[in-house]
């Protein structure tokens, strides 16, 4: 039985995948806390799709090498986040339509660019669904550095982000630079997405941002606790997902997301059950 547990970790590539999944999971969980509390799931998904042209350009110019891909994706992500954010702030009616049109168009542009290269199908699949088994030590280094920077900014502006998320009007009366902080948060989400791209891919990115955080939301009453619980759940999803993908021979990114979703459903079901039991007891007392 112990063998079964330990076997995958004999292989260095699995250990790297695990470290990557935990680092990325925790980062997405922390940033994802804001995504959940501020209702930015659509923004997150749109942003993840909108960076594909940037990834494509990096792919074309760098011949598939990891480094240029990363930096071009980063550039595209930051520009897109500010652009989508600006649209959200200026168009009063039907902003979701405007954002939807743009991100779908950019996604299609990305696919068009990538498909111009021969042998593109595998690489496109990696961008969409992740390539966690192919993570290298230098990729992990990049994830750690940028992840660390993001967490540092979250810590520095912790109080400010909390105020703008809970009560933007209070933030204005306190003369906080609300717009600047909004944009800063969007840029943090953008960088998080780029850093996490290799682990889960574009299609599943929004799940890593919101599912562990949504689960933590059900289990916590204070913001720092919510972030910690979200990170723990994301890490557990990473471990379970990798076991799942190893023994069942399924794609790792999808397995991680499925694990996170199952944990959410379990917790959500649990809270509903507890509520029902409490109501039963209450009505019996009356």
């Amino acid at each position, binding site marked *: 039985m112990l063998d079964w547990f330990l076997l995958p970790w004999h292989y260095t590539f699995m250990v790297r995948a695990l470290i990557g999944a935990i680092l990325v999971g925790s980062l997405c969980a922390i940033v994802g806390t804001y995504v959940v509390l501020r209702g930015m799931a659509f923004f997150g998904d749109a942003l993840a799709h909108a960076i594909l042209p940037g990834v494509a350009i990096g792919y074309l110019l760098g011949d598939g090498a990891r480094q240029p891909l990363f930096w071009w994706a980063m550039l595209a992500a930051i520009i897109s986040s500010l652009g989508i954010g600006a649209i959200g702030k200026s168009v009063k009616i039907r902003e979701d339509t405007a954002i939807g049109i743009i991100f779908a168009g950019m996604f299609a542009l990305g696919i068009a660019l990538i498909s111009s290269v021969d042998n593109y199908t595998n690489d496109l699949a990696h961008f969409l669904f992740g390539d966690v088994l192919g993570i290298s030590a230098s990729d992990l280094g990049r994830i750690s550095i940028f992840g660390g920077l993001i967490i540092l900014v979250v810590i520095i502006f912790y109080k400010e982000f909390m105020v703008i998320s809970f009560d933007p009007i*209070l933030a204005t009366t306190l*003369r906080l630079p609300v717009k600047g902080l909004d944009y800063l948060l969007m840029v943090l989400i953008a960088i998080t997405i780029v850093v996490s791209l290799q682990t889960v891919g574009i299609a599943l990115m929004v799940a890593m941002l919101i599912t562990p955080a949504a689960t933590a939301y059900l289990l916590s009453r204070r913001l720092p606790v919510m972030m910690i619980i979200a990170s723990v759940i994301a890490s557990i999803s990473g471990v379970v997902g990798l076991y799942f993908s190893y023994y069942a021979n399924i794609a790792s990114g999808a397995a991680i997301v499925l694990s996170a979703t199952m944990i959410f459903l379990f917790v959500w079901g649990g809270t509903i059950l507890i509520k029902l039991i409490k109501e039963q007891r209450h009505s019996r007392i009356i």
Partner: protein
Amino acid sequence: MSIFKSSNYLIHQFPKHDIGTPTLKVANLSFRFGSIDALMDISFEVNVGERLAIVGPNGAGKSTLFKIFAGVLKPTQGSVQIYGYEPNGHICIAYVPQRNQVDWSFPVNVADVVMMGRVGKLGPLRWPSHKDWEIVHQSLKFVEMEGFAKRQISELSGGQQQRIFIAQSLAQEAELILMDEPLTGLDLNTQQDIFRILDMLKEKKVTVMIAMHDLKLASERFDRVVLLNKRLIGIGLPQEVFVPENLSVAYGNHLRMLTTKEGILVFEDTCCEEGEHSHA
């Protein structure tokens, strides 16, 4: 990190308050949103420590007026001066939102909410100090909720919810508190609790303005009242402002008046309004 002064979010310092000048001076204030005139040519003054009721039907512009005072919106025409300066330059103005506008499921407890009032003074990188926690504690004590510090905000009653926002304003060291419909939906006893706290604020010379519907309460518990429906219909003592001519202008035909022995009983017909907010 003392290089970060309390006013580090702005390049300029916050102005000193000359208690001689009126707290609030509004001159020809108008606000236009797209093609809609929300407020038209409003002028009045408020003095230190006054407690004012802003009364009017749904859509009268009460919330908009408060948001302009708080510095959240900019007037299209006219001016607002707080202690002689624009609202934008102060952090002593607190806006207490309507309870139904607040996200009560946000993962914060009572102490967190009150501490938020101090964030303007703290600046980034500075963590709340012992002094800040003292102020939070004192603020909670003032509103008689010191035992609730660790309570999650979703577990509070209506009156308690209102009081923590007053505590937040105190922690902010606000000198002008604008409250949007704080008494709506509270039972009489709870309302009295709130007024008791407002009386204590009056002693501290905090200026309070409350937007409300309840004409009776407005006429009983406030120094002066403002009757508003996009325009300033009347300002002054309740018995001077709440006269039938003014009330008809303010409420149109949504008001029914019944003359009784004690005075005029006024009924507001609030069905089917398009207001700037939904009526609870």
